[in-house]
């Protein structure tokens, strides 16, 4: 309860200070019909969309638009998905309207479970070649668990459905006469994450198509299968642009490029059809892929003055962090050899691992009114009171779950951190503790034995995901105090992992294996 309250407060804070532009491919923006869309773009409800249809016994790629309208009512979301698609040669087309009702229930451990069902009579008509397919019944169920971690929300879910179509022929030109049915059984699972630096969702659907069609006096029966895997993600890429003119006050700066990208791979195993369109025993395996990319949006980042670091090994890390405004203190006085205090680290980590943005379609208006309420807050720590320069940041870092206090209700804001402590904070922020055994996790660092017991798990995970590497001799030096320079390198690597590293597991790696 308390936590969620602070979350709301923090959300409002972030809503106010974060730039208004938001592009997010959050969950559900590709619909649940096995296709990919260009992903959420603020202010837009209609997206480019592609899917593959297998009803005719051959994979038919349909492209067009998907319009999504969402409305939040209490803990339920009502969303309307309207599809308008056609094949490239226009010989086939599809029109579909589905209204989903999603119930969200919060669990006491902070996770939330969604259950989605179809709300009213679904409508779908498809024309492929001379055949018309009309949806006559659709059973659908989808469930989703979201696990909120300090810097990342992870989710995983399952989907299942059965669609029954009646087949009609449009060759006569008159009203189509039902000559058979096609049943499409769908099972699937999906995984994804949402966070400030990017979002990715990967979904895997398995279809079984079964057709029963009258051909004269004979009933033709055939069946086929298809697997569709797709991944849709939003990423922020950053690159450095050097200025061409020499006589300019700064040498160059970072440009952030944000774009959505969706890829889809399908494999189908369907019968071959003879010239009379009757199924044969020869099975045809088809495999292909689709891709939609949005046009990238560029943003120029702030240029810090860190001329004192010219040539320092952490120069780029520090410049990046100031450009991303993760480091905000006076840039020209940044001392790379100074130890970083817990307070300073708390301030940086909440900016490096920014709060997960909410689906803009679902931000209820009531939260804004809450911001007008003034509340008396009690400091969590005895040694960090409201007059502390870092009060808000430390409170936020603690409440979001990055950092804990030290001892009884103290934070020791001026203590220095060790590398092991910092790694623990990063892994906790990512919520990936479960990737290594809780006790006795073993790393391959030469000085594995000097890693404190509490940090073994985190260091092991950090090594697995590439967040930390040993020095040239294979040592980690986990108990060394963290200098500003080292902290900057770590923070930057943390952001790079959130931006690029984690995505691969939900995209190329997932689709390929």
């Amino acid at each position, binding site marked *: 309860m308390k936590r969620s309250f602070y979350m709301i407060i923090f959300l409002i804070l972030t809503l106010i200070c974060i730039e208004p532009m938001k592009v997010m491919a959050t969950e559900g923006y590709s619909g649940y019909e096995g296709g990919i869309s260009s992903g959420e773009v603020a202010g837009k409800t209609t997206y480019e969309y592609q899917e593959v249809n297998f009803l005719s016994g051959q994979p038919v790629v349909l492209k067009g638009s998907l319009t999504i309208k969402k409305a939040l009512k209490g803990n339920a979301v009502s969303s309307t998905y309207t599809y308008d698609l056609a094949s490239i040669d226009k010989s086939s087309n599809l029109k579909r309207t589905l209204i989903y009702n999603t119930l969200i229930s919060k669990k006491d451990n902070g996770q939330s479970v969604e259950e989605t069902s179809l709300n009213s009579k679904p409508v779908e008509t498809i024309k492929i070649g001379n055949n018309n397919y009309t949806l006559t019944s659709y059973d659908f169920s989808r469930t989703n668990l979201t696990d909120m971690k300090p810097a990342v929300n992870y989710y995983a879910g399952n989907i299942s459905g059965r669609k029954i179509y009646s087949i009609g022929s449009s060759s006569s030109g008159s009203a189509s006469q039902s000559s058979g049915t096609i049943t499409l059984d769908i099972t699937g699972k999906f995984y994804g994450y949402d966070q400030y630096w990017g979002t990715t969702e990967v979904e895997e659907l398995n279809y079984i198509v079964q057709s029963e069609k009258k051909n004269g006096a004979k009933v033709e029966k055939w069946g086929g299968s298809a697997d569709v895997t797709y991944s849709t993600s939003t990423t922020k890429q950053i*690159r450095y642009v050097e200025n061409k003119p020499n006589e300019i006050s700064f040498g160059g700066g970072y440009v952030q490029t944000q774009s959505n990208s969706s*890829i889809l791979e399908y494999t189908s195993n369907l019968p*071959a059809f003879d*010239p009379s369109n009757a199924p044969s025993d020869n099975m045809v395996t088809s495999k292909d892929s689709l891709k939609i990319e949005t046009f990238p949006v560029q943003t120029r980042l702030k240029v810090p003055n860190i001329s004192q670091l010219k040539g320092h090994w952490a120069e780029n890390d520090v410049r990046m962090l100031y450009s991303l405004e993760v480091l905000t203190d006076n840039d020209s006085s940044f001392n790379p050899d100074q130890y970083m205090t817990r307070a300073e680290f708390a301030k940086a980590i909440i900016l490096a691992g920014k709060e997960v943005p909410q689906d803009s379609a679902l931000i209820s208006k009531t939260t804004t009114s809450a911001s007008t309420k003034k509340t008396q807050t009690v400091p969590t720590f005895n040694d960090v009171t409201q007059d502390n320069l870092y009060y808000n940041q430390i409170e936020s870092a603690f409440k979001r779950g990055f950092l804990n206090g030290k001892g009884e209700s103290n934070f020791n804001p001026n203590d220095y951190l060790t590398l092991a402590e910092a790694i623990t904070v990063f892994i906790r922020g990512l919520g990936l503790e479960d990737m290594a055994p*809780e006790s006795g996790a073993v790393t391959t660092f030469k000085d594995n*034995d000097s890693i404190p017991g509490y940090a073994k798990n985190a260091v092991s995970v950090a090594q697995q995901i590439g967040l930390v590497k040993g020095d040239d001799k294979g040592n980690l030096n986990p108990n060394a105090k963290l200098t500003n320079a080292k902290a900057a390198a770590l923070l930057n690597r943390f952001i790079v992992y959130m931006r690029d590293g984690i995505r691969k597991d939900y995209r190329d790696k997932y689709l*390929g294996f």
Partner: protein
Amino acid sequence: MTHKKQKKVSLLLSIALMLTGVFSSAASEKEVPEAVYSGIDNASVLLKNIDYTDVKNSDTWAKEAIYETGALGIMKGYGNRSFGLTQPVTKEQAIAAAYRIVGREADAQKAAEALDNARAAANKKKNAINMWSDGYLQLAANEGLITKQALTDALNADQTTLIPGTSFYRSNRAQRQEIGDWMAKTLKLDPVYGQDNIFNSFNDWSMADPIKIPYLEAMLKNNIMNGTGNGSFNPTGTVTREQTAQIIKNAENIILPILKYDKKMGTIEDIKKSVDSSMGDKITTNTYNIRNSNGKLHKVDAQYLTDAFDNSKNEQVGTPVPGAEKDFIVYKDGKIGKNDLLSLGDRVEYIVAPDNTIRFMNVVSSVNDTKYVAAQVNSVDPSKLTMNVTTLLNLDYPNLDSTNKGNIANSGSGLIDSTLRYSNNAKIRIDGKPATIDQIKPDLTFILTIKNNMVTDINSANLTLNGDTRIVRGVVEENNPQLGYITLYGENGDGVDPSVLNALRTFNYINPNGITVNKNHKKADIEDIEPGDSVFMKLDAGMNVYDISAADNYTNKYAKVISRKPSSIAVEFEDGTQQVLPVDDKVTVVSNNEVVGLDKLKDGDRIKLLLNQTNKNISVKGITVSDSQKPIKNIYKGKLVYIDDTSNDLVLQNVEKLDKGQWERADSIGISKIRLGDDYKLYSDNKAVEIEGVNKNLKNQEAYIASQSDYGGGEKAAVVTFRNKNNLESMIDDTISNNEASANKFGLTKNSNDFTYGPGTIIVKDDRLVLGNSISSDDAAYIVANRDNDSGDYLAGIVQLNERIDPNAATIYRGRIKAIDDNKSFEVESFSQLKGQNWEYVNTPKTFKITYDTKILTDKGLIAQRDFTGYGDKSFIGSSVYIMADNINAVLVSTAPYGPDGAFAKGRVVELSGGSAGDDGKYLTEPTGVMLRDAKIYDVTNHIWADSKDITLNLLKNSIIIKNKKEINPSEINKNDTLRIYKKGKTETGDAYIVIVDA
């Protein structure tokens, strides 16, 4: 995670608060005590009786037990102020004790009286003790502790008539197993059947009476009895009286409630003395305020006579006025006495009777100088008298109740390790028995008494909760079933002294084959437990492993195969690091959802490795080959206009595509773009370069570009290598003769030059980008090389190692169908087989099998197999067909017409015609024609190929098109492919019947 930790912090906090609270807030006068207790009337007499002379000055380890059982009247001395420490207990004494501990004296007496009443007057027992003893024996027989025959033997007046070895001698020494059995029964312990782990951990279990084993197990499980310390239980051994006292003491948690005694703990926080002389004698009352461990106040009054008039009387021999004494027995520092032994700050255990009298008070320590911790000993260094321990819980009293145990059991990480100094004469007890420091095994839990920062008492503690044995967890460092041990790596390990591997704990297997093993929640063998696994292990009383539950900690890593050797693979991980991993036949390799052999791994494959990785070794548990390899689709050459650093597009001009070793102009005219892939690499002069540098220095230079397939049918540049335009480029089609990977050069069979390669060389094998070491002799190669004008060396820019198309086309027959067994097989009357350009006739029938993969082509195209029948209007019997066969299986049956002998043509594909393609370049309908250049027509009389003008042929719906022994669609024919065609006539036009793609 966070919650757990917070909870623990608060728990420790509250303990700390409790500790400090005791002293800071001494009981205010107004506090109402929860209970008020007093002493007993005859404390002095009792003290006299139990202050045994043979115990007093001994150093017996059962002292507390002897005094406690004595004070509670459960065990009595011999009456001569001697206890008889080492006297063995007789059977009748043991039976009596077994009943006394559960307060059944009255029942025994009744039984005894009944027995005695039944006796003739002469036989009546004179001795009360003997008579009661009879009563206990009677009870024992009634309740099944001994047999009726044993009772008869016992009551036999003339014990000399009994038969040694068979009869029950009541005065014989009781065996350990008998005492265990009897006590377990009178204590009504549930016998433990089936689970004989504990008992089996003693080496002499087989000597025990099998009927008694379940009861002995119960005694062991409740920690009432233990082994004799050397791994044996000694079931037939004797029990001394001091041992008996200790056994009873061990059972006090069960016995005290039965006897309606209550054991409490507290700390004396105030002592008030008041004197009353009103009765003439001076009666002193000491009032003790005890802060009970539950936080409540208990008051204990002790009054005793201090005879002001006769100081010669000491307390022990004095005979106080009845009712004047209300004192109690106190045991402190190895001495027994009365309340005056107590002092402020003493931590005491006190046993209270239902009448609110104190029956026994044991001073465990004083708060002022002593603390207690439950700790796990990690290592002991006897030379320095230090021990490294993990503190599990700070205790108020040297005792673990179930709450404490629960707290310890649920505590996770974050425990503190410390090194403590121990006293050279520290009292060590393991399972209640004295032990020496070398008997302390790592991972045992002890309650340590720490006085003045020195460990003075080490008592093994049992963390057994509700009858479960001890459970340890950790990560396996080594598992050695052959030698019978397993070593765990704990989470601690401060690394202060690397020679002391205090992070490691080794446990033994008594019998590795008898251990229950589960891995990943499935039954497994002990050998399946590997280094790196997380394990939970159940330990028996001897700290031996009898049950293991494990889960692997395998990790996934993604990599690219560099090279494969019979017992290892070299891989490059995503971060660019390379490693050689050992592999064997047991490693499963999965490709396209099928288990395949290691030999299916190709250089350049993207793979997912399932690794079991520890800091000591790495082993491969599984390999999954990516089923979207993103093969190299094309190799281009083009002049760079620039690289668009926003979209990462290479902007190129004069683009050419490498096609069969030759540059062919690309389809698109003018400027074209190709996107850089995710892990693109740019090289110039074999050095990696950045986009910035390229845009600065390499515009208008020619580059070689290897492009990979991308999703959605597109392609992306994987490697871009700039060539020096001053060098002469040469195109070579040859076979590798040797490759010196160490010198980065290879030689060719026909060409006599050596070719060097470097990081920037685009080497493609099986459509994958590979490194130089993958070039092997006999590989057919297309090479694009640049000759350095100065040195004359040839530098390979592109090496394309391709499997050449197998020129031996599939076996093709033709014949007339004689019979068809629907969907199963068909037979031809006789057949001809295509060999080269000739049809060789064989005059015998031949049968071909029809499988699900058999395709039937007619002039309408593919028809359903089920329509390939030998009856009715559409019967195929009598039709002449071409059959492409794989052994006896028909792959393709075509009804294409017979052509004349030798009607062959060949040539290079100029274009395909007649098909329609969509926007994405894919064919929507198949091409129906093909045009060949450089054409030749077969001259059947002279057996030579004669030059011809360009040939245009029709592709029929039942034309057979074969590439690499596979039947393909017309759209799969590529431009520049060389075709060999069997056709309708000998002219330049007409229908193609069989099309063989040669190269």
